[in-house]
């Protein structure tokens, strides 16, 4: 029963694999839930910041803020590519890398110098492999990105933007739309899009002054955009891994059905053959 034994081995190994992928699916599902909660928890801050900035904003003030400058031509741009530190998440990191490459190609065809900042081992690994130099690389940002992580990523770029050595900063991230759809997206965080002016403006008492408040809030706004990109990408990563692991589990189940069928067929054929041999032997003795 050589074929039967071989199949038993395969069935066992597939069962073990399925156990692992099923566990990973469940782990990712719960991590995704928590990451999702963080995405939602980050919303009020962004709304509050956006509200106040657009209620204080007026075009005359804008002239004096380096963070609001809108360069006519983009000579040099920075891209922050956010990928994951771990694999087994389907095409998640590959999609982000593809998006980043498309953006690089587009910017370079417009004559822009592009510097690349990679977050996550997958992105770093890819660009090392193709031999494109990275301006900075970070693989220490965990599953639970903090506002401090975002600040450490973008603060240096903000200074370069202010002193004019950078004209634009993009973040390549995943936009978490739902558990099934989290497409990669390039978000421009700098220059800051001009906020729409609200029609009905309250007469606020402003301390110390509108300009001073904006000086304080604009960097916070930019950092927050990056923070949100980080948390959304983490949520998308877990959702991608969950989907990939669910598919792997389903495939393992399909394979098991086939192996078990083959195994039983082999076992039955074996029994039939043994019976035939016994019957044959008995009738030979009788004869």
């Amino acid at each position, binding site marked *: 029963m050589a074929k039967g034994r071989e199949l038993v081995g395969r069935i066992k190994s597939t069962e073990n694999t399925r156990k692992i992928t099923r566990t990973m699916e469940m782990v990712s599902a719960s991590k995704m839930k928590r990451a999702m909660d963080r995405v939602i928890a980050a919303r009020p801050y962004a709304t509050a910041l956006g*509200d*106040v900035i657009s209620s204080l904003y007026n075009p005359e003030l804008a002239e004096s803020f380096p963070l609001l400058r809108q360069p006519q031509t983009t000579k040099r741009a920075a891209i922050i590519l956010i990928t994951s530190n771990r694999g087994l998440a389907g095409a998640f990191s590959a999609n982000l890398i593809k998006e980043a490459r498309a953006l690089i190609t587009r910017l370079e065809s417009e004559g822009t110098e592009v510097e690349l900042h990679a977050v996550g081992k997958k992105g770093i690994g890819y660009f090392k492999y193709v031999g494109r130099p990275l301006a900075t690389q970070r693989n220490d940002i965990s599953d639970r990105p903090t*506002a401090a992580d975002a600040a450490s990523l973008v603060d240096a770029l903000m200074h370069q933007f202010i002193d004019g050595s950078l004209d634009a900063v993009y973040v390549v991230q995943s936009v978490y739309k739902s558990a099934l759809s989290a497409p990669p997206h390039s978000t421009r965080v700098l220059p800051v899009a001009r906020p729409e002016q609200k029609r009905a403006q309250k007469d606020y008492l402003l301390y110390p002054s509108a300009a001073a408040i904006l000086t304080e809030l604009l960097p916070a706004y930019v950092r927050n955009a990056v923070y949100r990109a980080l948390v959304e990408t983490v949520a998308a990563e877990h959702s991608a891994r969950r989907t990939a692991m669910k598919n792997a589990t389903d495939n393992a189940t399909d394979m098991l059905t086939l192996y078990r069928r083959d195994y039983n067929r082999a076992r039955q054929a074996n029994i039939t053959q043994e019976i035939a041999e016994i019957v044959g032997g008995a009738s030979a003795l009788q004869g």
Partner: protein
Amino acid sequence: MLNVSVISPEATLFEGEAPSITAPAFDGEVGILAGHAPMVTVLGTGTLKVGNGPSFTVSGGFLQVVDNQVRVVTESASKA
């Protein structure tokens, strides 16, 4: 009564009613009672007290008052 929310980038730390709040503005403490005029002020570092309820250590950000709604939006906050 004031409707107070304390918001940090990571989470909303407090949401609820309070009779007054004391916040560390950039140039010293500022106290707010119901019926305060609309105001936006930059925050410094210090302790934010919400009525007799919880207090937080905050740093940076701003405080906005409008129609008895107080929003404390800070870059870093932790329960004190």
